């Protein structure tokens, strides 16, 4: 899957890198595909192979055992889990400043998050293990009304009195297209679920032994994101479509638009620090919240979950349109 970029030149040997994502190729991975497609990684001396995930695929375990070098984790919770389970992995950058996790209802069925408690909720198993615990603790949701979401919105569509989870960038559009109505959307980040999302995780030993390589990956990815969001992303989109034939240009365009609209990738801290930014304050706040909700054990050395060594350097800020 080598991009259209010029074939290997003299130069030094490229470092082979495998990056596992958490879903099939889609716009939410755009920055990474961009960096592959336009040769940014190559420029940084990396030969990146993207290993797509999917429903029911747990690529995560492949990271600590060395089958992949970087992993795209869904939210910061997973990083805390790694610390708790003494898994030697660590978050080195946060591609998404806001978790795109949403709850979706039929129009007119709910106005506030509280209204959702009266509906049947379609939540995935991962969702149950993470943000739903926070909903329980902070908003008094119960598990009684939950049915499993197997990444198929049909049951939701068939039942007006239901809500389902989704990514702001993805499911609402599919529903709009197919079911011809505009669903109501609750972005959890807006209600205080202040996790980073789509983090780049790697092994602690890579951080210790090959910090250069890690730095290059983080930097090149950030540049990829800027180019994907703000410049010509056709090459990346072609690569995505090649990896995922289900993908359409309209879908990709919509996702990009939503990412911009909600400031998923580029908002807040990134305006100053560049894409991928993380701060201790944000991590701390989220950790405290998760301890309060009982999802994470108290007394965890949460600082082991991430490192700021590679981010907040303003890499690529120059690519941001003024």
């Amino acid at each position, binding site marked *: 899957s080598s991009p259209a970029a010029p074939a290997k030149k003299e130069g030094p040997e490229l470092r082979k890198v495998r990056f596992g994502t958490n879903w099939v190729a889609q716009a939410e991975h755009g920055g990474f595909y961009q960096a592959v497609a336009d040769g940014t990684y190559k420029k940084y001396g990396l030969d990146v192979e993207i290993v797509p995930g999917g429903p*029911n695929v*747990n690529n*995560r*375990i492949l990271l*600590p*055992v060395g089958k992949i070098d970087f992993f795209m984790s869904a939210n910061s919770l*997973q990083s805390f*889990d*790694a610390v708790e*389970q*003494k*898994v*030697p992995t660590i978050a080195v950058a946060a591609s998404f400043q806001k978790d795109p996790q949403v709850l979706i209802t039929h129009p007119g069925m709910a106005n506030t998050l509280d209204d959702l408690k009266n509906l049947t909720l379609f*939540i995935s*198993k*991962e969702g*149950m*293990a*993470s943000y*739903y615990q926070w909903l329980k603790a902070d908003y008094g949701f119960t*598990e009684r009304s*939950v*049915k*499993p979401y*197997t990444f*198929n919105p*049909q*049951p939701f569509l*068939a*039942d007006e009195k239901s809500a389902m989870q989704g990514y702001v960038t993805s499911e609402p559009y599919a529903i709009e297209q197919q079911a011809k109505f505009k669903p109501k959307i609750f972005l959890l980040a807006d209600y205080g679920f202040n996790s980073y999302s789509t983090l780049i995780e790697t092994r602690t030993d890579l951080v210790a032994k090959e910090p250069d390589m890690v730095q290059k990956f983080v930097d090149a990815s950030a540049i990829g994101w800027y180019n994907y969001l703000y410049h010509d992303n056709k090459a990346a989109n072609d690569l995505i479509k090649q990896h995922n034939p289900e993908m359409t240009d309209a879908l990709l365009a919509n996702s990009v638009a939503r990412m911009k609209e909600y400031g998923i990738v580029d908002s807040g801290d990134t305006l100053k620090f560049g894409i991928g930014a993380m701060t201790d304050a944000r991590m701390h706040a989220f950790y405290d919240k998760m301890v309060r909700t009982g999802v994470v054990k108290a007394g965890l050395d949460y600082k082991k979950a991430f490192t700021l060594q590679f981010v907040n350097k303003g890499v690529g800020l120059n690519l941001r349109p003024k």
Partner: protein
Amino acid sequence: MKESGLVRTVLPVLLLAGAIAAWDMAVRVFAIPPYVLPGPGLVAGALIGDRGLLFDSLVVTLTLAIEGFALAAIGGIFWAVVFNQWRVVEYSFYPYAVVLQVTPVVAIAPLLLIYLPQHLAVLACAWIVAFFPVLANTTLGLRSVDRNLVALFALYKASRWQVLVRLMLPAALPQILAGLRIAGGLSLIGAVVAEIAAGSAGAGSGLAYRIAESGYRLNIPRMFAALLLLSLAGVAIFAVLSALSHLVLRRWHESEVKEER
């Protein structure tokens, strides 16, 4: 005889002990981290530490598996009989039984969730998985009945029902029981898959959720503990069905009669 009984129990136990020891050794010697392969100690620890949680989940899964098994057994035998009695029905409907078998539960679970109340949807998923082996084996059994015995029953003007109950079903018993043995394990798998695809999550959910959740949370020892419970449940179901088979067939069928020399 005494000796074979001894071999029958001691050897497997020794082997099991050996396997556990080897596992422990391997984990220690190669310093395999627990998130890749937890040692037996850790798994046992998880089993004991989380016993409340795990056993509750086990009960949920087992209940579902047994319900699914019962439905599969009844349904499989019933349809095999119907197919056997009316060939026309067989030609017309057997293909759909095959379709049922090959339809991935994960794919149809959303549809079932639309049309059925949740408990029924889950049950239907569990049932689908275990149904076909009973059907296929019972079909074979019913077809293999001694033709002369069939003739005899015809001579005595046995009713269709009598032929079925007094001839076909007893004659098919060995195959039916083998089908049930296959279905036993599958019903457990069915329960797990059904739970993943259509079951409720969170508190009060079964082993499947525990396994998935532990996997996502990288709590691999607990995941292994849950898998272990599942395996034990499977072996227990199999043992019960084997014992039943032995009890029923021991006096007359080759497969269970002790060889006498």
